[in-house]
Each structure stands twice: as C-alpha cells, then as structure tokens.
C-alpha cells in the first residue's frame, strides 16, 4: 500500500486529492510504525525545512524511514520540502539536519542574485530527457514551483538529476536508486503533474 507521511507541518490535502484522482489506494500516516507494509512512500512537504526536520526527528520517523527506504529499498518520493529533507542539511530558519539520503544541502535560492524574485513561484520547464518518472511527458514540460530554498548537490555520484532554469540551474528532480525527489508540485501541475505521480505509483 502507498503510504503518505503526514508530518503535520503543512497542508497535504492536494497530494491526497491527486492520489485519489488517480485511483490509487493509500493510507495517510502520522506514526512511524504505520510505515510497516508500505510498498511506496510519499513524503510531502509544505512550509519550512527546519519545522519539518524537527517533526521528522521528534516523531521517530527517521529510523522508520531509514529501515524502509535504505534497507528494504521501498520507493520513496519527496515533494518540495519533502524532497529537500532527503538532503544532508538545510539552512532555512535556524538550520537543521535532513535525512542524508542525497549528498546535498538546501540553501536560499538567490544567494548570488539580489534582483531575482523570490519565491520562485509559477510554471517553469524541466529538462527531463530519458528519466523514467517522466515517461509520457514531453521534455521541457512546465511544472508548478513554489519555493525560496533549493537543493545544492554536493556529489552527483549515482544520481539522476533534472534541472530547471531560475537564475541558475535549480534541481527540479533528483533520483538515487529507489529515492526520488521533486522540487515542483506534481499535484498542482495539471496533466503533466498527474502523469508524473501516476508513473511513480505504477512504474516504481
């Protein structure tokens, strides 16, 4: 069963509606032991990296996720802040630790360009050639982004990466084996977003 992790730090109604719309069975979970029996995991996230990290560590979800994602290799999809949590650490707010699945850090998007409009909000195209989760989606399709912090990859080893251009190459999607992260919101990206979610549910 697909399990959607609810860290209770942001609204995840949209993700649930999209999964429902696709006809997938799912369970919304708030406790780490409910990960038992997961065949797929979605880690949504809206809001602040530090707040989400605090919840993740305080709730005991880190150990449970490590077991299911790293040991049993259950496919996981992190969305927005959920994707950023896959990194080693983030610098939003006071700064906090991530899960460390992807060798990366999360930093403010315009650390170089003061004139850049932040948040990066709206539709931007993603270079997705040959990536399995983008099957049936035209290369350079637009997805909906809304974020002020972005993942900076430290080591590209074993990674598939898709970028979008916003003043610099911004990581829009990252994959390491069974671990997927999307900075954009597939649940808010109309037909292409639903196709991306369908691919995660059906192909992984």
């Amino acid at each position, binding site marked *: 069963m697909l399990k959607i992790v609810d860290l209770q730090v942001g609204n995840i109604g949209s993700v649930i509606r999209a999964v429902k719309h696709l006809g997938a069975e799912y369970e919304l979970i708030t406790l780490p032991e409910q990960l038992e029996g997961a065949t797929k995991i979605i880690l949504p996230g809206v809001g602040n990296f530090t707040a989400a990290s605090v919840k993740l560590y305080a709730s005991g979800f880190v150990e449970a996720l490590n077991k299911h994602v790293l040991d049993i290799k259950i496919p996981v999809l992190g969305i927005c802040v959920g994707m950023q949590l896959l990194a080693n650490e983030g610098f939003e707010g006071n700064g906090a630790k991530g899960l460390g699945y992807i060798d990366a850090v999360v930093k403010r998007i315009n650390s170089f360009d003061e004139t850049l409009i932040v*948040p990066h909000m*709206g*539709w931007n195209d993603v270079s997705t050639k040959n990536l399995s989760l983008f099957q049936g989606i035209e290369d350079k399709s637009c997805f909906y982004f809304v974020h002020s912090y972005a993942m900076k990859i430290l080591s590209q080893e074993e990674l598939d990466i898709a970028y979008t251009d916003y003043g610099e190459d911004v990581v829009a999607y990252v994959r390491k084996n069974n671990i997927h992260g999307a900075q954009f*919101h597939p649940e*808010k990206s109309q037909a292409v977003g639903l196709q991306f979610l369908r691919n995660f549910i059906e192909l992984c």
Partner: protein
Amino acid sequence: MLRKRIIPIVLLDGFSVLKTINFKERRNLGSPITVTRTYNTRNVDELVLLDIDASKQKRAIDKFTIAEIAQDCFMPLTVGGGIKSIKDIQDLLAKGADKVAVNSYAIQNPLFIKEASDVFGAQCIVVSVDVVELELGVYAVFNNGHIVSKLDLFEWILKVVELGAGELLINNVTRDGNMKGVNVALAKKISNIVNVPVIYAGGVSCPEDAVRICETNASGVGISSIFHFTEHTPESCKLVMKRAGLSVR
C-alpha cells in the same frame, strides 16, 4: 525560464460569481463551481477566488465552496475574503487553498501579515492591495468603498513585503470591469520596487493588454471581464503573448 502567468480572477458575493465595474456595479454570473470547473478544463495557470463581501459582512469565505472547487482543481488556488486569523487560514488550506489573499485585515493590523507568514511561510501569503487612480500617476489605497488616506500606496507595498508577503495582488479599482486598458506605469513601478511576484489586475481589454503588463517585471496578470464577456480565453491570451516573445506555458 519562469513563465508569465495568466490568472483568472473569480469574484464571489458569498454565493454566486459576479463581476464588478469600479468595484460597484455588479453582474451575477452563476455558480462558482461551474465557473471554476470550466477554467480547470481550460488548463489555466492558477486561479484566484475572492469573496468581496466577506470583510464587510464580517464573515469568512465559505469553506465548503472552496472544498468543492478544490476537489478536482490540480492547479494552484489562491483564496481571499474576510481572513483575519491564523485559524481562518488553516481552515482554507485544509479545504484545498494553496495560498490565501489578505487585504482589509492587513490594513487594520499589518502585523498579521508577519504572523501569518511566520506560521505558513511567505509563499502562502498573498497581500491584495486595491488601488484607485486619483489623477495621472497619483494613486491611493482603497478599501471597503473608501480611500485609506493614512496609507501611501508605495510605502504600503514596501511595508507588506517587509512584513512577509510572498506575493502581491494589485487590483486597479479605477479600471476594474471597464475593459478599457491597463495602467502599465503602475504595474511597472510596483514590480520594480519589490522582489516578490506581482500580479496586476484591472482593465485588461484584450490579449495585448496582458502582453503590456507581462513585459514589465510583473509575474502575471489577473483577468476577469474579458474571460466572462468576450471571445477571449486564457489560451488565446497566451497565443498572443507567445507571438510577442513572452514566455508562457
């Protein structure tokens, strides 16, 4: 490259969709569920839903309408009307809003912007500002049928951004519903003094007006009348924008 956004603005009086002229005269346009569903199938970039009577009537926008609209709305949805507490925002987000637009209460209590932005993140908090043109190049903030004389428009805009607004929705009341053209100078000035996304609305008479607004630093243009009353659609606007060299989805 980030695309310029075409955003249909849907106004409600609590029950029905309506369109105003200069925020006064009204025409009823039927059920919000039907109207928004049409936009959804038309693959628009985003929707803004504002209950323009909520503040005056001291109530919040109807949550159940929002829930029904959000049900099959797989695009960003901004909702505003009568919001004056963290609980109001929580309720709307839970029913399917992605962003909330705050207007009247922000004028009464500017620190509410900061409070809301700290709790939900700046990306969630849109501050909506209604503007009247007193004479050429002279503007005032407008609220609830009156000019807010204690506020200077541009100072107010800088202040709300400083307090944590993640996006600005500028409604030009003087041009509202007239379909007689946009105030490019205003869109330009506002979008040049802030570094958050600016959506300009008011007066769009044709797709070329959308081009004029999007050639400034504004991130998008809010449109309502020409979608309700003329042959123009979000798609036809985008075609004209694309031909003009603008980046659209």
